[in-house]
């Protein structure tokens, strides 16, 4: 059992506990699947072995990730009252680092930043970490840690207000749904609160299906109690006693962390009857998705929880009237509930400072693709897209072309359109949607028609098949794109794609179909020439690459070729075997002297 009296301690006393606990000597590393794929497992083991050999009083602990994917293996060394962060720490570096620690010195090699210099780091200085404030600090499986770091201060504050006052706070905070649509959370909760039905449900949507988006995964792996606290506040405000978390099966660590957190919360009276000694009772069931993108759509998700095929329902009736098991239901994204917790833990006055006129607070964003610093960040609404991609993300070394925003429901925004604020409406004006917050950067070599075809094949396959516009329409769009990229495009195809895309958006049953044509329409809007070049025979999906006499024989292309199609000796001109070449363009993009021709 955990000592819940921490919840009633003053913030000064909690700070002292934090200092005591985290003043220890600790080495922390993330151990998520992608971190292990980056080599963290080997580095972690090396630290364990070297610390033991050196007999040093240092703990070596796993933590959830810091969001610095570009820097993994990323190591945090907490010692001498500060925290030091290191990048690309291979296992071979560990003995020297431990030797320095043993001498009482701070290792200098590969030092990325320190805790008291975060505001100098390019990656961190423009971030505002509100919901991700605990990442890399707490043990995500420890309720003790969560409580020391202001855990359940939010629920305690909410209990001091009436339910309708809780909802007013969210209105004041300008909190909007983080799942993609940006609907005002206070309005949604008010719908449910005012419904007099005795049986009502809450759902947390953790079915993060957008390719290129993993911010929910990061949040739940790092701080699962934050979601539980947020749902408990929601339950109090809306008068619900039962909640569901619907989590993707493709996120096994998330499911493990949630199961653990729910069990611990129940054991300590933070779920179940009479929470924190009040008359409020609430419990949460965990459901696992079974692999269907469409189940991220709220009504399809509800059908899935009911054990059915994940097919959306027509609206009206809306979930707040008739949702899960035909009862009034509120569904919010995981990040939205986490913001609720943060608003009540830190106070709405602090939260309101960030954001735009229409949208308060921050958004978690995943920067991926051909970006220098891929990772998970948290930024205030209102930050310019250009700052997000070039200042925080470091831009694109191979030449920025476009950023795909909003997953398969979104669109591609070119460089000329990046001088806009991050907000729901501004992104829609650019032909994309905020979506869950995945930003995939594409470089000058990216074929935008191929990108449109990629997304179309995705939504074609993920369509549930219920409504004709999506089921038939997306297939027809894909067929046209396939013809175009195979060199069989005809005059009039672009106009047909535009017309069909608009018809599908207007007539499809659910959000999947209503947004599926967006990648095609946005690439036509900004990259129409690429479509025209295909149709006029000026462009091919399979360019030929040839090494010219400019080659300096550095062998970089040979090393980078994924199929070993390039041969040559050092300082001699290299050659591409055209029979083996798969036209990926990696050699062309990476040649330091631009010695490769593309036709």
């Amino acid at each position, binding site marked *: 059992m955990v000592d819940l009296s921490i919840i009633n301690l003053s913030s000064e006393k909690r700070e002292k506990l934090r200092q005591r606990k985290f003043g220890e000597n600790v080495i922390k590393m993330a151990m998520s*699947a*992608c971190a*292990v*794929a*980056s080599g963290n497992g080997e580095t972690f083991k090396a630290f364990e072995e070297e610390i033991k050999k050196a007999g040093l009083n240092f703990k070596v602990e796993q933590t959830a990730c810091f969001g610095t*994917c*570009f820097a*993994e293996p990323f190591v945090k060394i907490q010692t001498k009252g500060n925290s030091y962060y290191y990048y690309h720490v291979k296992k071979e570096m560990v003995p020297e680092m431990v030797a320095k620690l043993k001498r009482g010195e701070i290792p200098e090699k590969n030092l990325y930043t320190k805790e008291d210099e975060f505001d100098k780091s390019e990656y961190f200085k423009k971030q505002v970490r509100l919901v991700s404030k605990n990442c890399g600090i707490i043990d995500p499986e420890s309720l003790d840690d969560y409580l020391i770091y202001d855990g359940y201060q939010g629920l305690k504050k909410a209990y001091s207000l009436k339910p309708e006052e809780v909802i007013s706070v969210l209105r004041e905070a300008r909190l909007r749904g983080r799942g993609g649509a940006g609907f005002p959370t206070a309005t949604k909760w008010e719908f449910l609160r005012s419904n007099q039905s005795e049986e009502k449900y809450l759902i947390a949507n953790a079915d*993060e*299906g*957008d*390719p*290129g*988006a*993993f911010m929910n*995964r990061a949040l739940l792996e790092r701080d699962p109690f934050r979601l539980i606290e947020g749902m408990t506040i929601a339950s109090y405000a809306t008068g619900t006693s039962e909640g569901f978390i619907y989590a993707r*099966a*493709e*996120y096994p660590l998330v499911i493990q962390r949630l199961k653990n957190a729910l069990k611990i919360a129940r054991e300590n009276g933070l779920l179940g009857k009479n929470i924190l000694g009040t008359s409020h009772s609430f419990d949460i069931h965990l*459901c*696992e*998705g*079974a*692999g*269907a*993108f469409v189940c991220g759509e709220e009504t399809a998700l509800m059908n*899935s*929880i*009911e*054990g*059915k*095929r*994940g097919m959306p329902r027509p609206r009206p009736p809306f979930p707040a009237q008739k949702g899960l*098991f035909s009862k009034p239901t509120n569904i919010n994204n995981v990040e939205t509930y986490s913001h609720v917790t943060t608003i009540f833990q830190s106070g709405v006055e602090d939260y309101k400072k960030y954001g735009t006129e229409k949208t308060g607070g921050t958004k978690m964003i*995943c920067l*991926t*693709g*051909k970006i220098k610093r*891929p*990772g998970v960040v948290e930024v205030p609404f209102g930050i310019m897209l250009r700052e997000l991609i070039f200042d925080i993300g470091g831009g694109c070394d191979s030449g920025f072309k476009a950023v*795909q925003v909003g*997953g398969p429901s979104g669109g591609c925004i070119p460089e000329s359109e990046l001088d806009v604020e991050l907000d729901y409406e501004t992104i829609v004006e650019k032909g994309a949607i905020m979506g869950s917050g*995945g930003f*995939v950067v*594409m470089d000058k070599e*990216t074929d935008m028609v191929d*990108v449109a075809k*990629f*997304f179309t094949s*995705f939504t074609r396959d*993920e369509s*549930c098949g219920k409504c004709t516009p999506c089921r038939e329409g997306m297939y027809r769009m894909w067929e046209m794109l396939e013809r175009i990229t195979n060199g069989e495009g005809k005059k009039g195809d672009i106009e047909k794609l535009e017309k069909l895309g608009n018809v599908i958006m207007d007539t499809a049953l659910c959000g999947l179909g209503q947004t599926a044509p967006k990648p095609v329409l946005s690439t036509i809007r900004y990259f129409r020439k690429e479509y025209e070049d295909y149709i006029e025979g000026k462009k091919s999906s399979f360019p030929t690459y040839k090494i010219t006499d400019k080659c300096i024989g550095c062998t970089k292309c040979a090393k980078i070729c*994924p*199929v*070993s199609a390039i041969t040559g000796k050092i300082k001699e001109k290299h050659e591409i075997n055209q029979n083996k070449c*798969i036209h*990926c363009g*990696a050699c062309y993009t990476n040649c330091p002297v631009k010695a490769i021709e593309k036709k």
Partner: protein
Amino acid sequence: MKSSTIVSQINSIENIVAKYPKNQSSLIAILQEVQEQKGYLPREDLEFIARTMNISLNKIYGVATFYSQFSLKPKGKHTISVCTGTACHVKGSANLIKHLRDRLNIKCGDTTNDGKFSLFDVRCIGACSVAPAVVIDGRTYGKLTVEELDKILDGIQA
């Protein structure tokens, strides 16, 4: 199949089904347990679920074929899942899939004749920062080239 084998399989299904309330909302969780234990959904198990839970076999098939997690065919000893998310696509996952199809001589969704390898192209696994990502026997590998992939498979085959 020997009757004793059939009986032991049904017992195992009995134990799984017995854990859940007898209504449709338990169906997906039950199928997930069977999938986890056996690597696929045997027909006889689905028939048992239909009889016990009073849900038509037709409906159960409808659910089993809707979700990509479920397989009606047994999988190979080793599973290779290539992520086809946007970041992985942009970083060359299509090349990895092509190479694996050629090397294993199977299409995505199939198993090699010797039952050793199954190949899947899967939806985004959320490891976008290490694109292109491949999951082999539950372990995620990132930033893979074709050569590195071959080395891993050679190691498994050895």
